[in-house]
């Protein structure tokens, strides 16, 4: 791709579709992740022509996913989820087995901001400054939210480590 040129949107989907799906999963669980993905990319397609050529496409997409996930969470609070709303296909994730359900419970139990910071840093690989831009607040607050989130995950799901995560 030459400099200063916007690539076809299909390439954006190809490059970032997987990451956005994983981010949506952490934010919302398996059940709502696919709808959030669809809404994110449709909204992104709408405004794509206005995105500056040198923008970080992944941070931009995660920002949209963040807003879409907030909409879903708000809708859920208005209409409480049925009891036992655990991801319905736990075996489709990472390491198969019963323990997956425990990790998802631990992720779900995090305060919103910690879960978001974990998703944006450890799953999307965004820098804390970018995450601060999404969450509002300072870079330090974003770093702290991610660290607290990981600490809580470790406490509630002792198998969790952060090895291999971006520095």
């Amino acid at each position, binding site marked *: *791709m*030459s400099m200063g*040129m*916007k*690539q*076809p*949107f*299909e*390439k954006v*989907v190809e490059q970032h*579709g*997987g*990451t956005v*799906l*994983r981010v949506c*999963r*952490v934010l919302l669980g398996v059940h709502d992740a*696919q709808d959030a*993905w*669809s809404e994110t*990319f*449709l909204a992104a*397609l*709408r405004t*794509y*022509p206005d995105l500056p050529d040198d923008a970080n496409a992944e941070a931009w997409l995660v920002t949209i996913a963040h807003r879409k996930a907030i909409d879903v969470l708000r809708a859920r609070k208005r209409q409480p989820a049925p009891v036992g709303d655990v991801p319905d*296909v736990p075996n*489709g*994730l*990472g*390491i198969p087995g019963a323990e997956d359900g425990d*990790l998802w419970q631990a992720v779900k139990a995090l305060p919103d901001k910690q879960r978001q910071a*974990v998703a944006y840093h*450890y*799953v*999307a*690989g965004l820098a804390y400054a970018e995450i601060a831009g999404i969450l509002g607040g300072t870079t330090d607050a974003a770093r702290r939210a991610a660290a607290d989130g*990981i600490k809580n*995950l470790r406490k509630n799901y002792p*198998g*969790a*480590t*952060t*090895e*291999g*995560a971006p520095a």
Partner: protein
Amino acid sequence: MNISPDYFASPADPGTLSRLRHRLGLAAEAEGLLDVAYTTIDSPLGPLLLAATPKGLVRVAYDVEDHDRVLDTLSQRLSPRVLRAPRRLEAAARELDEYFSRQRRVFDLPLDLSLSKGFRQLVQRHLPDIGYGQTRTYRQVAELVGNPQAVRAVGTACATNPLPVVVPCHRVLRADGTPGGYVGGPGAKKALLSLEAAA
């Protein structure tokens, strides 16, 4: 077990993503956001890229043109809202299939010639006047469009035809009867001419 991108991945992701991408193409079409839809089809002349705007078929590209580069150009010149969405290309794909199996002589498709301007577009609009199995020289086409001096410009118009095969620039030959250049390569031009001659 790491809290890393991989952990939240699933072996089912490729299938899930291809389903989601398909759904995105349909939703984009329904919302009027699909400025350029494309697909690739197999043909006797190798894979062909087909792209269409809401107005009609806008680009047919041979493999030698490099489909990624063609898509970059469409993104730049038409709109970056480009998605692989085969549905809009179904009629074009079917008619090309029929053409290559000698069951179709005339394409009946809405065309979008917006990638060409001025004299080039004028020439491309007239190329379908050359019937199936017939040929014209560059000079004859120049006369056909009412500008007999513009032989060289007709050559350029043929060379920059965004819709090869469908807009039959392959039916325009040099005055000495040799095929002349072709966007799909000289072999492709000969193959199309003999396909039509054999019918």
